[in-house]
């Protein structure tokens, strides 16, 4: 899978690249409007991360170009503007998702994962990891073919973990994934433990191996 990161802040772009890069993702960087336009026309990607404020032009213009060129890439806007108008405009112009800076890398990875899955597997969109099967469309989870009933939040957490294999996810990132922007307003995210504990218990009881590791004092890691 090829991902293009259009972001003028080099440090940030580099971090995103090294976080996302693994055996299945290959990341490329573009830091100006010009560079981004050239790359888009020369190559095709599975997913494009698009910063709206770029030296040399408006990121929304790139989005427009992509759409008029009938490109099929999944597009996620990553912006510091956080303005409602930008979000609405971006989504209306055909972006697949919008993420306001500053974000957790795990959140971005989960969004990238889900955009790519949506683009590539229209109908039979099932994630499989050994005995675990997750159907993204019907939103059901099976272990060795046996249906496991998860709450909406537990399902959300499971997707986040699957999109961030072998990465440490902090409690704050988990809370933000569950409560969105509101998580920012609290320092105490203890409720995350409860949801993760329940998820772990349900998976374990259904016979799933223990992929989810607790990293002491920090968060969790899904090992695969």
């Amino acid at each position, binding site marked *: 899978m090829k991902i293009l990161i259009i972001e003028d802040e080099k440090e940030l772009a580099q971090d995103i690249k090294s976080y996302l890069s693994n055996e299945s993702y290959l990341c490329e960087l573009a830091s100006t409007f010009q560079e981004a336009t050239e790359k888009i026309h020369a190559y095709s990607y599975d997913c494009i991360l698009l910063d709206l404020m770029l030296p040399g032009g408006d990121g929304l213009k790139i989005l427009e170009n992509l759409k008029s060129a009938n490109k099929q890439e999944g597009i996620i806007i990553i912006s510091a503007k956080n303005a409602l108008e930008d979000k609405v405009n971006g989504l209306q112009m055909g972006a697949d998702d919008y993420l306001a800076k500053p974000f957790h890398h795990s959140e971005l990875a989960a969004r990238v994962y889900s955009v790519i899955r949506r683009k590539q597997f229209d109908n039979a969109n099932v994630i499989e990891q050994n005995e675990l099967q997750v159907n993204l469309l019907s939103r059901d989870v099976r272990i060795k073919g046996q249906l496991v009933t998860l709450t909406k939040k537990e399902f959300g957490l499971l997707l986040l973990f699957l999109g961030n294999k072998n990465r440490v996810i*902090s409690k704050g990132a988990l809370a933000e994934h569950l409560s969105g922007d509101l998580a920012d*307003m609290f320092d105490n995210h203890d409720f995350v433990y409860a949801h993760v504990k329940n998820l772990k218990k349900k998976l374990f009881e259904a016979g799933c191996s223990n992929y989810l590791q607790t990293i002491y*004092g920090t*968060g969790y890691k899904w090992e695969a």
Partner: protein
Amino acid sequence: MTKLLNRPFRAFTVYALLVLVLSVPVYYLVVDHIWLTELDEHNHIVKTRIEERLADRAFSNKELNDIIELWAVLQPGTQLKRAVNVRPDSLYTISREGFEQGLLETDRFRGLSSFIYINGEPYHLVVETNVEEADETLLAIALVTFLFFALLICGFILLNRRIAGSIWRPFWETLEELKRFDLNSQQEVNFPKTNIEEFEDLNAELTRLIDKSTAVFNQQKAFLENASHELQTPLAVLRSKVNMLLQTPELTAEQSQLVNAIEIPLSRVSRINKNLLLLAKIENKQFETNEWIDLGALVVESIELLRDYISDKKLTLERTRFDHLVLNCNVTLVEVLLNNLLINAIAHSEENGQIMIKLDGQTLTIQNTGQVPLNSQMIFKRFVVASSEKTSSGLGLAIVKEVCSRYGWTIHYSFVEQRHSFAVTF
């Protein structure tokens, strides 16, 4: 407080009263003097006439004796008697009591005592004329004076009203315009044109002042927005670096706890920054698009979003009355308002506390249990943290207030029966 025009009015009234009261004795003295002078003249004329006529006729002594006897009967007001010793003429004023229409009355007389010679014999002639009594004169003058005083006062009042209505109109209009002015809404201030120099000066100075304040205010707003904007990127990089650090495989437990400890203040900074940016955006009149929203549904949504935090603190949530209320406004702003009020209630509740939500007609009340009342003057100000709670960004309620003032809603804080209560009237 007194009205400006009432001040001189009062002074004028007192002065007029003083002058008029002083004028009463002066008038009296002048009138009395004129009276007496005129009467003296009159008495003198009478005396001269009597003297001349008696001399012209050349009465015999016998006739003269008869006349003098008859005189007392026929000529009241004058006396003619034979005199023994002659003194110079003298004037006098005398009061006599007498019956008039059956009533005892005191009459004042002005008299002339004179000595005349008839047929070479000296006679004492007294001419007396009734003068208006002093107290009657005084009373009459006082009455007239007070009548005029009353007329003056009526005139003052009428003039005062008319002046207040017309001359001061530009002033009232300027004042109205100032009352309507709101630095936040930035509408134009149009002072009425006037041909009175002082008001024109006032208006010009006010316009200058307002323009300057508006400019400074706008600058400040722009600064706030730019500053928080500029902070977004370094914050994003910082968060990203912390994230990367967390992924390092060699991280010891101690180090990962340190990283975790960095994350907490970091999210606090980004929270403050996000809120500042939001405040700046509300102030700068973003979030313009309005739509019809069902407030109750939004409250329920907000509660659902915060459900985890509510149960985490073992809070009980009670919804008592819940009327249907539809508003035309920006949905994001209302969500922000509701979330902030709820977050505030959650953050400031103790464990096992209670949160009560009520939507009664046009008023949404959110209460939570607490110990000490907050300073209601300060809680809506920016960065005034009313409690020791560290989670507070100090901006949540300022944002709530800002949203309320944007739509002209009112928010009221009270503390009753160990409950903090925030009531928003839409």
